[in-house]
């Protein structure tokens, strides 16, 4: 954690600095999202939150009997978004956390995911109707020309850059483990019956191990966060070409992806968050840059 000294300094300056940063980030990112219960299921256990001012996008796909899945995914997105909002008032994500040696952007994601895990786990322990509930998660935090993605389970992040559509998270699933160990090929995996088994989830154990990776973000990039209801129903090539064809209208692209999943059967809840990088968003570091940042 912070020393008291540093914390106070951060708070004193936060109003100016954060306003500068917020304005530039909100104008550098365009976000569109869409979530739908699908064709078969009666309720939506997916939960999404996004905020261009914070540069945050969180998507969770809940599991557990009756409405417990919705409770778990809702808790995950709410806890992470509200905690992140509080933290970003006093900390800058590109500064290094003295205690862990990581940028705050990483540390905050991991801390808040851990907090969400505890909340879900405790609710599941104390209330019998929530017993065994959990959720997968993918969360992206954009700051200083990078994006940090943390994920647990089989919710995914993809990137479209210069016409190239790539999956940038690797599922924590039995299927992925089978592919990694060479038991089956990626091609065979499409027809596997084990698609639904995840090896990690938020809220099922007292602690959780989120996988965190940071990527350079460039103007023109489009990032897609999605639940397995999209990538199980629509082949990656189709997702990529749809994003490219409709990149001029992000909202329409999000709706189109959900519609394609439903047209193909819509057997699961389907959620997408699209984030487009409109321009460079390097953090204003020097005093002059910071002052210029206020006027952007």
């Amino acid at each position: 954690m912070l020393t008291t000294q540093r914390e106070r300094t951060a708070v004193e300056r936060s109003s100016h600095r954060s306003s500068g940063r917020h304005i530039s980030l909100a104008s550098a990112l365009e976000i569109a999202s869409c979530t739908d219960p699908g064709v078969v299921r009666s309720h939506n256990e997916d939960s999404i939150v996004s905020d261009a001012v914070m540069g945050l996008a969180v998507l969770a796909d809940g599991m557990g009997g009756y409405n417990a899945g919705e409770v778990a995914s809702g808790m995950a997105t709410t806890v992470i978004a509200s905690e992140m909002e509080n933290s970003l008032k006093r900390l800058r994500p590109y500064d290094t956390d003295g205690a862990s040696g990581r940028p705050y952007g990483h540390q905050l994601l991991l801390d808040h995911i851990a907090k969400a895990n505890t909340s879900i786990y405790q609710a599941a322990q104390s209330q019998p109707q929530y017993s065994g509930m959990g959720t997968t998660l993918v969360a992206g935090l954009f700051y200083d020309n990078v994006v940090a993605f943390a994920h647990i389970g089989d919710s995914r992040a993809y990137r479209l850059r210069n016409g190239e559509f790539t999956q940038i998270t690797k599922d924590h699933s039995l299927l992925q483990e089978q592919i990694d160990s060479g038991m089956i090929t990626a091609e065979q995996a499409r027809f596997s019956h084990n698609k639904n088994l995840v090896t990690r989830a938020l809220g099922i154990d007292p602690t959780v191990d989120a996988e965190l990776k940071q990527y350079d973000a460039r103007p023109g990039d489009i990032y897609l966060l999605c639940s397995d209801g999209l990538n199980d129903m629509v082949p990656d090539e189709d997702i990529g070409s749809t994003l490219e064809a409709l990149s001029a209208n992000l909202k329409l692209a999000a709706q189109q992806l959900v519609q394609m999943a439903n047209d193909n059967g819509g057997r699961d809840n389907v959620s997408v968050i699209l984030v487009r990088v409109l321009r460079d968003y390097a953090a204003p570091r020097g005093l002059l840059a910071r002052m210029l940042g206020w006027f952007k």
Partner: protein
Amino acid sequence: MAKLILSMDGLVLKEYPLTKERTSIGRKPHNDIQIDNLAVSGEHAVIVTILNDSFLEDLGSTNGTLVNGQPIKKHFLQNNDVIELGKYKLKYLAEVGAAAAKTADFERTMVLRPKSGGAGAPAEPAVPAMSTPRPVAQPVAAQAAEVLAAATSPGMPVLDQRKVAAPSPSVSAPVAPGGAVKPQVAAIQVLTGTNAGRELELSKPLTTLGKPGVQVAVITKRPQGYFITHVEGASFPVLNGRTLDAQAHALGDHDVIELAGVKMEFYFK
């Protein structure tokens, strides 16, 4: 949610939704499903429900439990299974949605606990799913280049048919929601401008029309038919002389679309 329908001699007596993780069946009054008949043991059987799956277990009853005519000790219940206790029958009906798509149960995400699952993948019996050969997707660039080359006359709208591979058989084949009829293949023909007479078959799920940065619309091919939607640009496409809004509009045979000053006709082949 799944439910049981209790009947005797073809008469429906009661319906029990499986709301609890553990539903007990027996003659004694404390059971969730009480069947007051001497052929039924005091604690006869129990149904354990986890997510969408229900398991029936006989608790060492005197007269036993049958499922679909076979005596069982433990049984994984499937839609329409008939459980028999003496003269009573309990029909198991899985969740409505899950029953419709039998595989849906299977697809519900579940956690495979690394601890209980042992060494995870290796412990699992190696059942490589059968690998039906899929049509090989052609590279996106090749297709786009081909179309662009055909439409590079200056000042002309670019007709860019994006390559969207046909959905793989595993996802598209078994589920036609609402029994929707597969639409016929349609095409558009350019009516005005230097590209007049050019025809473009709308065989892909998504076809964009227009000039990027000026005005673009997309035609989507869906199980219900073809739809046109505005993508970008200050002006919206005109369909049969009427300006469209931001919503998707169904296309009918011989509709005339006007986009970026060019007229084209939509028709089914």
